[in-house]
Each structure stands twice: as C-alpha cells, then as structure tokens.
C-alpha cells in the first residue's frame, strides 16, 4: 500500500494552482486534507502525475460571511467550520452535520469542499450542500463558474467539475430555517453512513411547516432532495399520521440504488423513511 510515483507541488497562489491544472489536465489531482485521496493513492486506485497541495493558498483558506452567504474556501478544514460561531448562526445544519463526518482526527485535516468535490455517495457534506442550496464556485485558468448543488452531483464520485477546474469555494446561503437535523445509520460511530438524511425547516407561529428541505445520502449514487416529501409537508402540521405518510412516501420515492456488503438497496430505502421521520420529529419537537 505505497503510492506509485507522483510529483508534488505546493503552490502559494491560486493562479499557480490553476496553471498546474491546465498544464496537466486529468493527470493532476488537487490535494486538500487528503482523507480520501491519500488512501486512493496508497491503494493505487488513483495514479495522478502530480498532486497539487492547496494548503498554503491564502485565497482558499477564507471562512467568511458576506452578503448573506457563508463562504467556505477549498482549504478550510471541517473542524474549523465546526467550531465557527458564525456557521452555527448562519448554517445550523452544516454545524449539526459535521460531527457525523469521520472522527475528529479526520476533520482536523479534511475539508468541507474536499468532501463535496469527492462526492462519496455516503458522505454527509454533499447532502448538506444540496439541502441548503449551496453554490459551488469553480475556477479554471480560463474563468469562473458557479454551479448550484442540484446540478453539481452527477453520480458516485462524479461531479460537474471539469478536469482543469478546482472547487474554489462553497457558498451556503444564510439559512432562514430555524431547525435542523441529521439522522443516519452507520455501522459504527464515524463510519460512512449506510443511509442518512440532512434537513432543515421553519414553522409558522401556528406550528405549521412553512419551508422544509430534506436531502438523503447513502441511499443512492448521489445525494437526493426529497421534493415530493417536502411538498407534502408544506403548510401542514406534523402529526403522527403525517409522519407515517411521509415515511412511506420517502420509501417509495427515494432513489435507492446503492448496494454494498453492509446493506442492500431495500434496507436503505426502508430505513430512509424511518430516518426522515426521526429528523422531522427532532425538528418539530
């Protein structure tokens, strides 16, 4: 489990990063926290010619709230986000989801953007980005693009990022929803989820759901918004009957096509209904 030979670059500016990416194309890989990429190298499943370590790029290390947006730079660690009081205020779901990402040791190195760019179907961060309607700001030597989360995740480990592009920043809109919840089932604490849901909602003063967003992870090849479920909930008071209906609707509409040694697709579909129920109970308690 030693990686094949590769070149290692550690530029200090974004322009240098983009220059290397445009020169090497699909032979280059961006290295942030390395929590997924380094094992892939050691398994020789990834064989990049050059690793571009972005840890020293100042422009990518910003974590700020600007114009109603929480902006998380590509090199910002999950732990830094988890500890930020602004994140807790502007994006409670993000704060709530981070403790589910690996273990503290992983989050000390792993980055929010890296997790999103890696697009593991069982990871929490892509689902959070989807639930929150985040925008991915991607750069190449030729320009900037902004890709909304619902067009970013294309499948397992597959995103809309082009080979010469870097996910420079993730922008989370400041949430108007007051309640957030994450529910997941994983073999052990800190494991990738077999299935999970990240969601947030706000209720009217009368206790009816005014706005809700829910995204599943682990169930299908990429995170999925539960549009029908959300629509079913809008304007409703969350009762036991409604929860039963919503759980059933989740089971029916969830795209459950992930199967591995830990669980088949049927389990994932079944448990996703239960997890949505639990998340809703937590958010309306």
């Amino acid at each position: 489990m030693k990686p094949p030979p590769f070149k290692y670059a550690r530029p200090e500016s974004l322009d240098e990063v983009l220059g290397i990416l445009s020169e090497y194309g699909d032979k280059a890989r961006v290295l942030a926290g390395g929590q997924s990429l380094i094992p892939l190298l050691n398994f020789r499943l990834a064989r990049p010619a050059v690793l571009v370590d972005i840890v020293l790029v100042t422009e990518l290390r910003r974590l700020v709230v600007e114009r109603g947006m929480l902006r998380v730079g590509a090199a910002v660690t999950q732990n830094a986000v988890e500890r930020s009081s602004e994140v807790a205020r502007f994006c409670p779901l993000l704060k709530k989801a981070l403790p589910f990402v690996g273990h503290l040791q992983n989050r000390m190195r792993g980055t929010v953007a890296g997790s999103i760019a890696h697009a593991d179907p069982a990871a929490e961060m892509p689902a959070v980005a989807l639930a929150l309607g985040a925008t991915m700001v991607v750069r190449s030597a030729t320009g900037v693009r902004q890709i909304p989360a619902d067009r970013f995740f294309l499948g397992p480990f597959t995103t809309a990022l082009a080979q010469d592009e870097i996910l420079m920043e993730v922008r989370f809109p400041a949430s108007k929803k007051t309640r957030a919840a994450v529910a997941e089932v994983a073999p052990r604490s800190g494991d990738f989820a077999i299935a999970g849901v990240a969601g947030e909602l706000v209720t009217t003063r009368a206790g009816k759901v005014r706005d809700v967003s829910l995204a599943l992870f682990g169930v299908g090849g990429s995170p999925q918004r539960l549009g029908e479920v959300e629509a079913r909930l809008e304007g409703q008071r969350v009762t036991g009957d409604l929860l039963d209906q919503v759980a059933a609707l989740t089971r029916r509409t969830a795209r459950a096509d992930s199967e591995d040694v830990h669980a088949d697709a049927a389990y994932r579909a079944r448990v996703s209904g239960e997890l949505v129920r639990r998340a809703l109970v937590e958010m309306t308690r």
Partner: protein
Amino acid sequence: MTSRPSHIGAHVARVEDDRLLSGGARFVADVSLPGMLDAAFYRSPLPHALIESVDTADAMGLPGVAGAFTADDMTDVSPFPDFDRNARPVAIFPLARGRVRYVGAPIAVVVAHDRYEAEDARDLVSAELEPLDPAVSVDEALAADAPLLYPEWPDNIVIQSAVTNPDAMAAFEGRTTVSGRYQVGRHAGVPMETRGVAAEYRDGRLTVWTSTQFPHIARTMLSYCLPLDETDIRVIAPDVGGGFGVKAEFYTEEVTIPWLAMRLGRPVRWIEDRREHLISACHARDLTLDLEAAVDGDGRFRAVRGMAIQDLGAAEMYPYGFSPAFAAVSQITGPYRIPHQSVGVIAVATNKTPCGAYRGFGIPEAVFAMERLMDKAADRLGIERREIRRRNLLGPDDLPYRTSSGAIVDSGSHRQAFEETARLTSESLDRWQARLAHDPHVRLGSGVVSYIEGVTPSYFATSGHWTSFDSCSVRMNPDGTAVVSVGVSTSGQGLESMLTSLAAEALGVGRDQVRIVMGDTDRTPYGLGSWGSRSTNVASGALREAADVVMDKATRIAAHLMEASPDDITVQDGRFSVRGTPGASVTWRDVATVANIRTIDLPEGVKPGMQATASYEPPGIEHHPDEFGRLNGCATYTNASHGAVVSVDVGTGKVRVLEYIVAHDCGTVINPQIVRGQVVGGIAQGIGGALLEKLHYDEWGNPMSTSFLDYHLPTATEIPNMVVRHFQSPAPAMPWGAKGSGEAGIIGPAPAIASAVEEALSDLGVAEITRTPITAPHVLSLVTSSVSAGRREERENSR
C-alpha cells in the same frame, strides 16, 4: 520451606508496559540491517486459475529491483510436510505452483531497494492465468459437478469424520427434539501489527525475524523447507503486536523471505500491508453447526447430534484450518450435563483465503450453537431461558465430569458463575430500562450464556505432530539475579509479567531480580509457543521443575554457609534464613556467588554452576480420539458465564451493547490485571465478531472486505462498560492451580447478544437469530418479516 507473602494474585503492574507504551518496543518492521531489501508479492487476482506463465521481465527492468522470482526458481525448497494422515495432503509450497486457489495466493515475489519500488515493480509482473470455475461456498464445493481445487482428489473434502454413536441415537427415540443450523461468519484475528518477516544469511547461518507466536516451530518448519539444519537457523520473534492465532500459523512468506536472503546474499524484509493481510493472512470461523438435541419435558438435554461443516477456504494453511471444527465438537456440550453426543466433522476446500486459527479456536462456534439451541428448547418447552440452563448446568457434585465428547472437566464454578452473572445482568437490564424509558425507538433485552474453555490443548490434534510440552531454563547469575528463558513467546498479552511473578515465587527473589527471555531460538529451550491459552500452564510447569532443581542446590549451599541443615532453610525476598535461628541469614547473592565465583567454598559433593532446564508435559491430555471421536484434548477447563444487555433500534435494526457482565473462573489468578485485560479484550473482539466483522466474498469468489473501510473492527464507541467478577476454582493437576485465560472472553458475546436481541424483540415474535454477524439490516429483516407475518395473521383472523 514455609509460607511467605505470595506473588501469586498480587496486584502488580505489568513489567513490559514501559517498553510497549513508550515506543521502546522493537517489532519486525523496526529491524534494520545494512543493505536490506524490501519484498512485495504479486498475488493472484483470480479465485481459481491455472498459471500458464509468469513474466517478470518488465519488473526486472525497473531501477532498484534486485530480483523477481516464481515457484520455478525455488528448486532447493521443499513443500510443507503433511503430518496429519487423516487429512488429504495439500503440499503447501511458498509460491503457487501451477494453480491458484484464492484471490491473494502468492504467485511471484519482487525484491527492490524499498517497498515503493518493490510495489512499482510488482505492478509490472504479468501472469497468464487460465480462469477455472470457482467453488465459493461449501454447497458449491460439494456439488456433484463441483470444480476440484485439488484435481488429484475425487472431491473437495479435506477431512471428514462421520460419527455415529448408537447411545446418542437411541436417546432421540421418544423425546422432544430441537434443531437448528448455526453459522458463525468468516472473520479473523486482525492484529494491530500485520505479519512481517526479515531475514539475513551470513557465515552459513540464517537469522529470521518473524512476527510469530511460535519461533521454535517456525525454525523446525524452516529446516523442513530449506536446505538447512536447525542449528544453522535462528528464529527471533521480537515484540509482536498481537497474535490472536493469526500468527500461530506457519506461513509461506516465512520461507520465501529467508530463501530470498540466501539467494540474493542480502538481508530482505517483507512487511505485510493491511490489504494483503485481509486476503492472505488466515481467515477463521466460517463454521456451520447443524445441531439437534433430544430434550426431556423438564428441559434436560439428553443428547446432541449433528455435523460441523467447515468452509476451509483453499486449505493451504498449516497448522490445519480444520482443527477448530474438531475443537468445537470436542466441547460442544459445554458446562452442561448432556450424556450423549454424535457430532461429525466435514471440512471442505473452497476458493477463498485459507482458514486457520483465531482466538477461541472452535469454542465460540460450539457455544454459539449450543446456547442458541438452549434458548430454542426453552422457548419450545415454555421454560424460562435461564431456568433451562439451571437444570442442565454441572454442579459441584458432578465434578470431575467426563463430557460426552470425552473432555474431563476437572473443576469449576459453573453454577456459581451463572447465578452471579444472571443476577448482575437482571440488575443491569432494570437500570437500563429506566435510563432509556424515554426512547421510543429502542427495545431492551438481555441474554446469559455459559461455557467451558479447554485450555492447554493437545497440539497433536491440530498439527499431527507435537504433543503439548514446553520448556524453561533457569539460570542464576553470580549476583543472585535470575535469567528465566522459556519456549513460549509473547505477543503483548503479559507473559513477561506473569512469568516474572512465578519465577519470583519459585525462586524466592524479588520481581525486579528476574529477567525473562523468550522469542529467540538461540536463547531459549525448545517449546511450542503461545496459543491455546497454554502459556501459563506449560511455562509454569517447566519453570517449577527447573526452579526446584536450582532451589535444591541453593538450599544446600545456604545450609553449608550457615552450618545448618538444608531442611531448616527458608527463603524470602532474596534471603535464606534458618528456621528457629533469628539473625542467621545469607543472601541469594552470597549463594550464587559461591555457586559461580567462590566455588572454592562449595560444600562437598555440590558441583559449580546454578542453572537447570526442564521440559514439562501437562498431564492427562489425550492425543488420539476413540471411535466416537471422544478425547480429553486439554489439560484443564476454564469456565465463565456472560451476560449481555442490549438495545435494539426497531426502526433501523441497529443493536447496541449497553453493558456486559462476566463471571470468569480460570482457577488461581496469578496477575489480576492481566486476566481482566484478557477477558475485556476478548469480549471486545467477540462483540466485533457478533455485530460487525465479516470477510465478504461475492458470488465469483472475489474478496469484498479488503480494507478497514469494509472490514469493521469494534472501536471504543461499540464497547460497553464491562463488569468482571472472578471465581477461583484451582485446577487440581496444574502448577499453582492456574488455568488459561487467553481466549475465554471472546467465546460468550455472540450467543449472549443473540439471545438478548431475541428477548428485546420477543413481543414481535421475531425469527431465531442463527448467524453472525448480527447486522442492522439482518435484524431489521427479522423485525419486518415478523411484523408483516403478524399483519397477515391479523388480516386472516379478521376475515
């Protein structure tokens, strides 16, 4: 000699921990020799194939590569001898010859300047493999048209023992029967330190550092395979980072690496990586027990019959991977009074990694099946699950008891341990019920199981060769300190501490005056190593015999120096005194100085020097079974009862162990901290096997659990608080009355947790849990099928 404050049972810190915890330990990977090369293996990517050709030319072309070899190059190597005449010979060879039988089988080896380059070169090896149909399961391997793993055999059966005991069969007539098919999943010991071998050949002598539990056996095996005498081989087991039975196998890599060092004239090292470990170090369990019991109406078991079916993988493992199946049968009735048994064994070769040893060695499988059957019988007869055990457990009046498998249960606290565990478990369940009453998702349950664990087993039954002895050498230095060298060897479990206490006890010296030597064939007398919870028994037996010789001599010298009778000499804390004569004393230093330096002062008839070596064969062990497979294969029998308190999330199926209770009896406890550590660690591993660990294969024989991403070991969050109580029923025939404690902890968790999960879900009427691991999807499927069955019933009733 008179009584004195004892080292036995004293709460003293482990002597090895400073070294192990401060980075002072030296593992195989720490061995660094001038000019040393690193090896990497090219392993079979196919589960079953013929090797047409292997091309290493490209690999040889890389800079830094010193050589690339296949079986064809090993013209001076002999295959492993096949000692067991009842098993079909597999003639294990270090690199695959002609055929590969599992993904991970070594086909070629590349040696380079470092491991990076070795792996680069390994990737350039290409083998032309002609794929063959694989037999991935026992059913496939036993099918009439099954592909043969060993084409010279008529089928894929490695060994079988069909037992028909007429007394057992007769007991089934007219009685209630309960039966089940119980499967313990394929998992393995997975020590923190993977395997590793380093070798150097200099001045006609081979030195091999290997991460093994049995250096002397490794040396013997090396001398069989390489053209060297044993005296020209030195095997060193340095610090070993966990063994668990995985390293009580002799592996082909342990021949290949020394052979490379001889061939290349340079030191060579191979440190196994985790992916290799999960596909090429021995797997274990994967045993199915088809078991049926004849039960009286009051719940008393009268007989069991059935079959132990071992999915052996490719069978290329020595000592034999089928031995745990025989061990399971040899203790199938556990601590219960069950007069008759008729249980056979069949071990079948399949295209998976070969199975071998793992802590527990068949007993976890036996106890899982027996305890599941107890629960089933209780439910069937309407007897409370703990009550049925009371009616079957051995009591003090039954002991010694010869079980239906021939095991002689010499002593134990079977009922006491059970009652204590049952009581503590009930109390724990009540506490947790109150604590979790608010959680609508979970239901709680508990299960209590009991078992015996045969310790210090016959090695003949496992290896077809050795019996069960071990050796110890005691040498007193002129300054009165002691060097104690033994044939057993440590893999972190605390043997140094245990032997230090025993040597201090036997020699009347302080613990700080004792130095233990092990794990080096040049520096220790021949022995069989550490496995089978044997080290305490065999090392202490040999130690005591050697110490007796030394003490006899020391007493005579001390008596001479004090002009007293040897009969009046006592020793304590390094000082010899004369009974009834206060003030008269000489030190161990005085005595040892006379023995070694001031030999001019020796009494007449006493020869110089102060050392003795003894070998000890534990008494009472049988090595050949009778016609019904019965034998007393172990020196003595540890017993324990385990209680698990669990919660089951009925929405997800997830099982959490809330608390775990143990009443454990390994006879005399020599070091309480070490015994507790063994029990607690064993339970943690047992919980892993019960809930998490499985080495998955797909239907074509491809391994699916090749990293810790997919092979889930328990971590701190999965391990509950444990309550450990000790009983001490000394083993009558063992030195100091001790019994082994190394494997007991791992035996109870699977059946205790299975029973607890069933109890938690009892009002849902879930189906029986018959296999491990008990994963969340598995539990949820049981809940779902019982709920939908219930709904169907409701609908039908309302019609």
